[in-house]
């Protein structure tokens, strides 16, 4: 852990306060001049702070939207429309919040993939990694419940499908589902509790973010070379170097964000959510928001029971197996630090690992596409057999799990890695010379 460097302000009043509550020291030691950081962080390291800023934007826009929104099935849909049409700047705040969720996920996904490529999950940063996954899970719950609030058709049916997932749990599943609903279907009680929890969870996320940053302070930032900091020559202070780099990245990111907010506010949403919820009519196809599509594809890809073939003995029915696969796809990442035991952290020195990393990216793109299609879509016909989008999803799912359970453990044993530089400074200076 980097040394704690106390700040001693010149101003007497500030010094008096600092002695009693050292907030300046805290800032100085987390993002300040007193925070030595690896000198070679590239732009992929921007996405942590971008995610943090998106969280702040979501909380701010969400709090003001809550001042106008009504969580009641009779008026929820209209109250959202009223925000957009009549509330001052509502036309700006609502798309900012809705697209903000998408951009929060964009930042977090790139942040996670950066961690996957550069081995950021490896010792001594396992807890840092796991806290990030906790944040991700909380984000998913928050985003799901937020999407229900406008009470459109996708809101209602998305909520119905997701809450029904819990009924797959043996013995207590139906009771859990009733507990979530507060009735016999998704209805007014469900909407009200989702609003309450949607308001609460971001603050829980904020708490875990603080732990995440604390864990980063303890284990230090990773870096693109994956070698630990050895001397002062390997480091530069966070401020001004990375504050400026982060600020520049933020500018670019916000320009893209603003494009969507102002010029394409509904591009990432589903048109059916502008139809008020109707519990008697299911839309043609229920699709989640884009950031859930790969997981939705995994859920839908399981259409077979797990049991003894040619008998009626079933251990795990298809529905439960799909639910397990979907949750496992994320929970698996918690044990990633032990699945990939290669001593070399960075993908830059792992040629085979890098190839599989890009296959994983392609796999995720395919799963995202699959999740957005109708399950009956036939992609190809081979010898009279129909190959549907669900079958493609199953292949994608199999690769996803194989990547983590089979490929990475084998790679950590057999891969011939490239020589790792002695230190950050030697590598940086060599490349500069």
């Amino acid at each position, binding site marked *: 852990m980097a040394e704690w460097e106390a700040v001693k302000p010149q101003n007497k009043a500030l010094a008096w306060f600092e002695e009693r509550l050292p907030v300046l020291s805290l800032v100085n030691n987390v993002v300040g001049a007193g925070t030595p950081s690896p000198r070679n962080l590239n732009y992929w390291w921007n996405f942590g702070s971008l995610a943090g800023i998106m969280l702040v934007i979501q909380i701010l826009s969400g709090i003001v939207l809550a001042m106008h929104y009504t969580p009641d099935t009779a008026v929820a849909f209209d109250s959202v429309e009223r925000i957009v049409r009549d509330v001052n700047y509502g036309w700006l705040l609502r798309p900012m919040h809705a697209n903000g969720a998408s951009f929060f996920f964009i930042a977090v996904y790139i942040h996670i993939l950066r961690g996957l490529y550069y081995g950021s999950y490896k010792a001594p940063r396992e807890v840092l990694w796991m806290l990030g996954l906790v944040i991700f899970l909380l984000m998913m719950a928050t985003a799901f419940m937020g999407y229900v609030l406008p009470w459109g058709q996708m809101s209602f049916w998305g909520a119905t499908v997701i809450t029904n997932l819990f009924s797959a749990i043996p013995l207590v599943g139906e009771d859990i589902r009733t*507990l979530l609903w507060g009735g*016999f279907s998704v209805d007014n*009680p469900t909407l009200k509790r989702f609003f309450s929890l949607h308001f609460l969870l971001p603050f829980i996320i904020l708490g875990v973010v603080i732990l995440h940053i604390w864990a980063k302070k303890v284990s230090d930032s990773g870096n693109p070379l994956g070698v630990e900091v050895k001397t002062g020559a390997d480091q530069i202070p966070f401020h001004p170097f990375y504050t400026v780099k982060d600020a520049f990245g933020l500018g670019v990111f916000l320009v893209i964000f603003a494009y969507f907010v102002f010029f394409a506010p509904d591009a990432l949403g589903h048109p059916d959510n502008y139809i008020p919820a109707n519990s008697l009519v299911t839309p043609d196809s*229920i699709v989640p928001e884009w950031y859930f599509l790969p997981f939705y594809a995994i859920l839908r890809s399981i*259409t077979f029971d797990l049991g003894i073939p040619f008998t009626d003995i079933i251990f795990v029915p298809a529905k439960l197996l799909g639910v397990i696969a979907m949750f496992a796809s994320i929970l698996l990442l918690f044990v990633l630090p032990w699945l990939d035991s290669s001593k070399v952290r960075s993908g830059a020195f792992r040629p085979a690992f890098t190839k599989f990393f890009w296959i994983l990216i392609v796999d995720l793109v395919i799963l995202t596409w699959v999740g957005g299609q109708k399950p009956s879509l036939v992609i190809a016909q081979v010898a009279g057999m129909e190959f549907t989008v669900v079958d493609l999803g199953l292949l994608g799912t199999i690769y996803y799990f194989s990547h983590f359970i089979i490929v990475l453990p084998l790679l950590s044993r057999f891969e011939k890695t490239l020589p790792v530089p002695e230190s950050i400074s030697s590598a940086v200076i060599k490349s500069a010379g």
Partner: protein
Amino acid sequence: MSTTKHATEGDDAVTRRDMLNITATCMSGVGATLALWPFVHQMNPAEDTLALATVEVDLSSIGAGEAIVIKWQGKPVFIRHRTAEEISAAQAVEVSTLVDKESDDERIKEGHGQWLVVIGTCTHLGCVPVGTKSGDDKGEYGGWYCPCHGSHYDTSGRIRKGPAPRNLDVPEYVFANDTMIKIG
């Protein structure tokens, strides 16, 4: 306590104080857990929600081959007036070949074989299958078809093809008279 004589028996000795500490901690744990229950149970259906549990439906206006959908407990209920062919198709099926083995007789009320009453939510993930309205796709077995994930139900509301694990549920209902049922 260092001044009690128990301490002189060695640090490992179990003391009265340990006993008090452990029981007190356990009891506070039990108390705290019990105190959580109201916070959990408030999420379950409230009394007024439970009170809306029955509905009466007049069947006289539903012609043979037609079906209606009504709302019961926030969920759609399909009521189908089956034709003779639909009934015989449902009864001709070999029960042992079904995913969820139920004969047609178990799913209707005796003497009212033309009426099929099922809860209209797919047992997969709760979408409302289509097939109630006359122009709808009724699926490969002439009953209902769930567009979400492709489950096909037959004229008895039984799952025949697709990911759904069970037949469409039959709600509790009774015939008040020949043209009136009470659901719930």
